[in-house]
């Protein structure tokens, strides 16, 4: 309850500070969407030249992408901690965070909240709805519940992985390049995993489970394919909890090691 109130307070502050640069807010929203749009344009152009991509139709691939946008938007809103090491460790702001009673990760996340990213989730849902109608699928109440659970699981996976990566800053002075590295690997998860070779498929499913934020949960709603990854879909929340648990564990241990920047 207290954590909810904290969130509201941070949100109020965010709105106040953002309203100074109102035009910029919208430019940011639009440029975010444009970036997502680029990937959609890629898919659309690709399907002008082929009817199927690894056995998946255009509507299905776009549906998967739309699904992916939903957890990705939520994740970007609440886990906007790209520069954690730089800002909190090198500059020593972590000291300030640790003097307060709320959990350190929660504070860091709230301080960096980025609500405009939620527009991506909204667009993602619209994209899904359009594909849903196009494919003539039926909608049942249970689908919505499953959808929410799958999205939460996917957000947990992202959150866990990036929490763990950010926490690396506690252990090493400059873990250069690992975060952007991960950011690029995650692109693999947006497309049908069966187009990759066995090794990459295995890594994406079980080591860095980016397949669980896009293709696997989304396939729950689609017709089963040859390799039938949709059977794994309901594992998404489990994988999410495990990954988030690992992330939190690494974070908490890191905080214990933290000794301050010195100056």
């Amino acid at each position, binding site marked *: 309850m207290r954590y909810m109130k904290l969130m509201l307070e941070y949100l109020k502050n965010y709105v106040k500070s953002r309203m100074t*640069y109102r*035009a*910029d807010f*919208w*430019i*940011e929203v*639009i*440029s*975010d969407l*444009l*970036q997502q749009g*680029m990937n959609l*344009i*890629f898919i659309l*152009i*690709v399907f*002008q*030249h*082929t009817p*199927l*991509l*690894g056995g998946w139709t255009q509507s299905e691939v776009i549906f998967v992408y739309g699904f992916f946008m939903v957890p990705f938007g939520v994740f970007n809103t609440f886990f906007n901690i790209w520069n954690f090491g730089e800002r909190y460790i090198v500059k020593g702001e972590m000291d300030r965070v640790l003097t307060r009673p709320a959990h350190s990760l929660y504070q860091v996340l709230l301080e960096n909240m980025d609500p405009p990213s939620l527009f991506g989730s909204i667009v993602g849902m619209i994209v899904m709805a359009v594909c849903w109608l196009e494919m003539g699928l039926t909608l049942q109440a249970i689908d919505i519940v499953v959808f929410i659970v799958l999205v939460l699981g996917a957000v947990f996976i992202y959150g866990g992985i990036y929490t763990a990566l950010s926490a690396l800053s506690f252990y090493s002075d400059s873990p*250069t*390049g*690992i975060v*952007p*590295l991960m950011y*690029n*690997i995650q*692109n*693999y998860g947006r*497309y*049908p995993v069966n*187009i*990759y*070779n066995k090794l*990459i498929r295995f890594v994406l499913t079980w080591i860095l489970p980016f397949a669980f934020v896009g293709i696997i949960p989304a396939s729950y709603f689609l017709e089963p394919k040859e390799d039938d990854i949709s059977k794994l879909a309901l594992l998404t929340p489990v994988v999410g909890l495990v990954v988030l648990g690992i992330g939190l564990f690494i974070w908490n241990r890191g905080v214990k090691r933290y000794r301050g920047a010195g100056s």
Partner: protein
Amino acid sequence: MMSAYLDFIRMRFLMMLAYRVNYYSGIIIYAINIGAYYFLWKAIYGSQETLAGFSIDQMTTYLAISWMARAFYFNNLDRDIANEIRDGSVAIQMIRPYNYLIVKLMQGFGEGLFRFLLFMIPGLAIVCFIFPVDLPTDPVVWLTYLAMLVFSFLINSQLNIMTGLFAFFVENNEGLMRMKRVMVDLFSGVIIPIAFFPGWLSSVMNWLPFQAITYLPSSIFTGRTPLAEAGSVFIIQLTWLVVLLIPIVVMWRAARQRLFVQGG
């Protein structure tokens, strides 16, 4: 005067060299991206021999060379300029006895030289090792491509300088810079060769500078565009180089009239 400008190249090159470790992971990132698109394109081709004039081997080569060219011509001149405008240090630079924009371009050259030698070349070597890339055997193709690459760099830097200068006119051009980056990646043909675009879009692209950055040179490199047509590619690149000077000069003139530093 010239030697002062050359010194900016040297200084930036040495500065980049000090941070070279950051770029080792860059090579891996580019290889990962090339890999993602390599598998995608393989699935797209399926059993089809050629698409939009590219065979699958040419496509792989196109991917490799386009991403590695991006590794070379990419720079953050837009962010540098925008930051200096926002924190006001551009005012100090303006009263110094050199041309601010030329200095920026020289720093870009320094970074480009570094990226070419320590990012693009080793990156290309590694990528060729992993993926079935067909490098051209004709040395003339290589030389032509390298010459085009210089233009790619210049045109991309011009676009960056323009984007950066926008900071004079809007208070925060962060969004604009991001939008530019996405547009350059998509429209220059790094993500998809322009030949794949639907007809109307590729004819729009003919009237924009982006194709001169990646698509046209890479098509020569892969052999999709015969070497005989290299002349017209050079003309397109040269034309854009000249045309883009106009908005830069206009913006720079207007900017000096209305420099407004926030805080500081």
